[in-house]
């Protein structure tokens, strides 16, 4: 009985380790660098054509092309990069929106994004409205 219990325990541990190893193996190739715009531009040669995640704030207008692509600039800490995005760009995306972009920096210096995530509305803090001034 005691031997059977040990066998069961060993089998359980081995099965658990095997399943966890399977999960880790499935995820391992997905580790990608995660950089803000200024960090990427400071070492652009090292990250050219490498899949990565880029973080920053939209500046200026979002241009929507007829082929479904969107063109806009993303900025962080004073440096900006042009983004060409093939993912669905929500109507709420505008100047000041915080975005996370999955893609890669091309040879032309444009960041080609295939996936766009915008910061959840609950995070976004607006400025308090000023009271009207004057008579």
């Amino acid at each position, binding site marked *: 009985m005691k031997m059977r219990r040990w066998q069961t325990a060993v089998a359980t541990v081995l099965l658990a380790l095997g399943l966890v190893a399977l999960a880790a193996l499935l995820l391992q190739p997905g*580790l990608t660098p995660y950089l803000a715009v200024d960090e990427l531009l400071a070492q652009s040669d090292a990250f050219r054509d490498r899949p990565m995640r880029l973080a920053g704030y939209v500046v200026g207008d979002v241009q929507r092309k007829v082929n479904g692509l969107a063109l806009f600039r993303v900025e962080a800490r004073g440096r900006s990069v042009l983004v060409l995005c093939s993912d669905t760009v*929500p109507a709420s995306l505008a100047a000041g929106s915080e975005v996370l972009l999955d893609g890669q920096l091309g040879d032309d210096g444009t960041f080609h994004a295939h996936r766009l995530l915008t910061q959840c509305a609950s995070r976004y803090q607006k400025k308090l409205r000023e009271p009207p001034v004057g008579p």
Partner: protein
Amino acid sequence: MLIPLGQVSLYMALLLAALATVSFLLGVLRRDLLAARAGRDALVCATIAIWTAVGVLLAGLVGGAFQLDYVARHTDQALPLVYRVSALWAGAEGSLLLWTALAAAASLALLSGGPLDRWHAAAGAAMAAVLLLLLLVLNVDRAAVLAGRWPLVTTPFAPADRILPDGTGLLMQLQTWAMVVHPPALVAAYALFTAAFAVAMANLATGRPTTHLPLLRRCLLLGWVFLTLGNALGAWWAYTEQGWGGYWSWDPVENASLIPWLVATAAIHTMVVTRRTGRLAATTLSLCVAAFLACVLAAYITRSGVLDSIHAYAAAEGEDGNILAWLLTHGYMVFSAAVVLVVGAFIIRLRPWQPVPDLDSRPSSAVYRGAMLVIALVLLAFAAGVLYGTVGPVILSRLTGKEYTMETSQFNQLGAVFGLLILAGLAVCPPVVSRHRGTSRARVALVQTVAAAVAVACTVPFVHTLNLWLVPTAALAGAAMAGQMAASRSAFGSLRRATAWLAHVALVILAVALAGSHLVEDKQTFRLAAGDAAGLAGYQVRLKAMDRQADASGTHLKVAAGLEVNRHGAPLAVMRPAIRLNTQTGERQADVAIRSSWLEDLYITLEAYDPDSGQTQMSVRRTGLVVWLWIAAGLLSIAGLIGLLGRQAKTPGENRP
């Protein structure tokens, strides 16, 4: 008046929670019932103080008390009443206060009914310790600590820097019924898992692992129902409001809500064995503790800022060697580590619990136990994978000094593989565990399962383009449904088996819907003027006219596209995707138009409109089987609720199979 009243209530609650924790611990360690009673009284008073704070904050939100920073940031004068109330849980401080209040109420429910004994003292100590942690975070302001100011700034009642006549209001994206229900559903789940944690800790501390199992099961199952609803509502909100056509992005905060759901599902399965035979008691209790710690991890991810997330409330700030600030950032993890150590110590000294002999000696009992354990292991491994993918990059970043993240495609792959494993379990388990009803019946069930798998796999080429994932998914889904149909013969013999059967069928539907929505997807962007038409996957979309409407004040503008949709030449629907614009703030919100059918959704988002040229840009998407996601989530919740009904076994083995 509101600010001091709210602050004093939370200060008092903090002191009382500390007193309750100490008193209950004395009650446990010294078996001192007087100390335990004092702890209960302190807990009652702390609960009253916490709910007073909730009432004060609600009064401020409803009454427009913009001198409160929280009220100013989440409401304005024009906000409808329902959203003023829901603003209570719209922000970090308010949702944490709600969790604290619900956990306090749950603690009173745990300790009521029946005389106070050492078990109740242990449960009370666990609940009071959790309340103490939450109240510390509510009362001590990290920003104040970092700035060297007085730290006891009860953040829900922090005064506004300047008192303005109006607040900033709630963003348009959050003004939906889903956002009214989604956060409190999650918070209620966290509070119920806190109660389950307290019951588990009390069982472990008193060395009686199989007592109070009906109570533990109720807390766990009801928490699981709320978490299912909360996650489903969040996914539904993302699908209908965000405009990107998806419902799950494997964001850290989303993952942090998935992990406790997987762990709790594993605990529900091992609990079946514990209730029937007394076996796997330590495993079940440990999983209940783990489900609660996963909620603590969720709070840590959402509020500490260590992980960048599209949902996170906080941004990471350096603590510059300030120990108190470090503790406030990482206190959730320090608490979790302490719990793990304590639980480990309890389990090591736990006396082996004698199983119910007549049930445990049957060969089918061992098979049943083995099947439940394997299912639990698969779910836990899936949870471990999601956890690794979520926090692994952060740990790697800390070790290497470079930032990393996990690609969404890898998470999708993880979900697909473990989804297939779960489907395999749903297919194989019913015939395997039904062996006690006769090997011939089990053999017939197994043959039917395999036949269904082959039959469904053979139909795939006629339905869709062949795909690496499609054939095994379809085969396993067919086998799983056949397995559940075989199980249905005996399922309706008892309420317990019927609810389990319903939950398993819902899981098969969920797996098929998830696969369908990923594998059947077409998307295209069109630029149309009035009268133009475009086609996608058999649908033809014609723009009839654009419509611009402003409200009376001119603050809100809505631009809508009137679309005629035909399918294979026959008229199908009129759809009106729109963009809403707040002309004062510049905030824009897409109103997605969705036409759902049993097989697929047609999803149209208006992306841009140029009034000068009359051109409209819209994205048209067809996604398979989406409606079945919501049906499956609903069925899972119903199954969980029904599972709470019926007579509960008070001792292991009382409910015979």
